[in-house]
């Protein structure tokens, strides 16, 4: 069914169609039974085989060839580079596509750095693999390179002379698995987003000096990417006027050492994911530093403390701030193999954080901790108003609710909202008795939410006999 000539699309409209095709139907390798035998499927490039007019139109629009994925193989990649002419190009290479990024591919990129806009590479590479970044990159905006570690090889080094010191539009840099980050490179001056993962460097002072030059930086993430302990102590703090998000991940000592030299804008979010020794002493040094930032209205968005292998995590997730500027924060204890660390950490964090934000807590401690330890944890949470707890400690909570010392509630005296998950029936019966005791004195709970797994519909009746509930929300079995 040939087309009426009046319906032939103008070249620019047809090119528009091809742009969509190029975006949504890129070339790829088709998986076969044999992993090494992956056939190339041309995808949108098939339009160049339809007729000579379509082919000419496709070849006449360089922007169509501006996504060079090395999945298509070296020959095709070079052909696409040539057809893109001087249009800004996005280069990618992901091992999942079955193609391994090679030194020859790297050389192809170096020949076209003059019009590459973005590089996204996930490859096995080592040593001086990235010396191909030696020529100027006037259009380069973003680099995202994950250097997969190869057994027996050293991590790759990013040369300080990268791009021959000329990449004026470079704004985003995400590097993973590199050795020595070249903080002194002048191409970092206009960086807006900097993320370093497993990329250590030699000097913290060098890093701070470089950050001081990055006036536009809005997001900084350093994940296990720190310098060894600094010998030189800096006299003043470093201001990062545009920073919106700071993420530090790694040894708590490294995080503290960097955090105390930074001065953050008032609305900057802090994400901390720290690891530390078993005693938790290192972690306590974090809070005075963190407290200084919180006093300046900086928002603590996330705090994870991982005492590694007896593991403990505390996550602090921020909810919309309350009118009084107190953020409603949830602390989640996920794992506890060392209740001493939990107690110590909670006590310290409460001391520094509670005036600022902590109002509600979620406890999920596993495996079941000794009751004595749990009670110590409760003792550290006296300001909490809302509590969500999971199965392992619901029985202990029942005991704590019933306990009074010197006429005062032992357990969270300001608690007005309690939710218990996966409560066993026998604990439920105990809870019922506890609530009778509390009616005799102490603070009343405004809301009590109990989530119970019932073995059958019949057991609802037995539950009714135990606890006369105001409202039922029954899910399907």
């Amino acid at each position, binding site marked *: 069914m*040939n087309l009426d000539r009046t319906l032939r699309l103008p070249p620019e409209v047809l090119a*528009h169609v091809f742009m*969509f095709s190029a975006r*949504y139907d890129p070339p790829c390798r088709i998986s076969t039974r044999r992993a090494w035998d992956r056939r190339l499927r041309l995808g949108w490039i098939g339009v160049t*085989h*339809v*007729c*000579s007019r379509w082919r000419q139109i496709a070849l006449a629009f360089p922007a169509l060839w501006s996504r060079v994925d090395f999945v298509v*193989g070296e020959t095709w990649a070079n052909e696409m580079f040539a057809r893109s002419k001087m249009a800004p190009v996005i280069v990618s290479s992901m091992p999942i596509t079955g193609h391994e990024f090679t030194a020859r591919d790297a050389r192809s990129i170096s020949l076209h750095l003059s019009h590459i806009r973005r590089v996204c590479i996930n490859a096995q590479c080592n040593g001086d693999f990235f010396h191909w970044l030696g020529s100027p990159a006037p259009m380069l905006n973003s680099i995202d390179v994950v250097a997969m570690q190869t057994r027996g090889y050293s991590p790759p080094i990013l040369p300080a002379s990268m791009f021959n010191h000329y990449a004026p539009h470079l704004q985003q840099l995400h590097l993973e698995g590199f050795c020595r980050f070249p903080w002194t490179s002048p191409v970092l001056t206009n960086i807006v987003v900097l993320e370093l993962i497993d990329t250590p460097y030699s000097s913290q002072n060098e890093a701070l000096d470089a950050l001081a030059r990055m006036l536009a930086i809005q997001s900084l993430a350093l994940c296990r990417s720190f310098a060894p302990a600094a010998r030189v102590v800096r006299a003043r703090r470093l201001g990062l006027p545009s920073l919106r998000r700071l993420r530090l991940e790694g040894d708590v000592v490294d995080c503290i050492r960097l955090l105390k030299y930074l001065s953050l804008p008032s609305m900057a979010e802090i994400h901390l994911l720290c690891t530390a020794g078993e005693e938790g002493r290192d972690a306590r040094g974090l809070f005075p530093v963190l407290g200084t930032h919180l006093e300046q209205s900086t928002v603590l968005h996330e705090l994870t403390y991982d005492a590694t292998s007896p593991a403990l995590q505390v996550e602090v997730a921020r909810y919309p701030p309350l009118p009084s500027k107190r953020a409603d924060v949830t602390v989640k204890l996920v794992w506890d193999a060392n209740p001493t660390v939990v107690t110590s950490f909670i006590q310290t964090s409460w001391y520094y954080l509670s005036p600022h934000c902590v109002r509600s807590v979620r406890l999920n401690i596993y495996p079941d901790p000794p009751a004595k330890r749990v009670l110590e944890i409760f003792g550290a949470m006296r300001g909490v108003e809302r509590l969500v707890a999971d199965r392992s400690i619901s029985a202990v909570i029942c005991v704590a609710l019933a306990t009074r010392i010197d006429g005062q509630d032992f357990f969270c005296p300001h608690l007005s909202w309690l939710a218990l998950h996966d409560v066993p029936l026998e604990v439920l019966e105990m809870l019922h008795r506890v609530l009778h005791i509390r009616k005799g004195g102490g603070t009343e709970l405004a809301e009590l939410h109990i989530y119970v797994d019932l073995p059958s519909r019949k057991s609802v009746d037995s539950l009714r006999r135990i606890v006369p509930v105001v409202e039922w929300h029954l899910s399907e079995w």
Partner: protein
Amino acid sequence: MPTIVSVDDSTVPGEGSSRLLLLVSSDNKHIVVEEDIMSRSRFISKQVEGFEATSQRHAILLPFSSFVLNKVIEYCSHYRGYYLLEDDPDAAPPGRSPVREWDQEFLDVDRNMLLRIIKAAHYLEIKSLVGSCARAIADMIRGKTTEEMREILGVENDFTPEEEHSPSSKCTG
């Protein structure tokens, strides 16, 4: 350039906030439409600017049928007052328009109609409609073999047998 004929002001009332335009299709149907609705068309906007410069109102003759023109007006009416990214060439490069559910239903038409609409949108310089149609056509040929693409869009294979089988001439690398 379109053909422009002078019209009587009484035919096209142009006062107040909802000024009207007279569009004349290739099958000589006269369609009156509010100027606001057609403001998404850069072509029409330029014509209106021309009217204001000469203080004369005209009917605008368009080289496509009333059926196609009504579809375009339906599109413009639906998005009246909306800001669409694709209409701002600086804000959105081609190929980045989001899929809009309404557009999908609107463009659920046969191949010839779809091609007529995209040509009309191109003529009227309605970038968002060109983008939506281009996407719909790209979806039609996505994942198809060369032969299937020819079949779907009614394109004749004009490669010589040599070109057909020569990898270099067909860019197969």
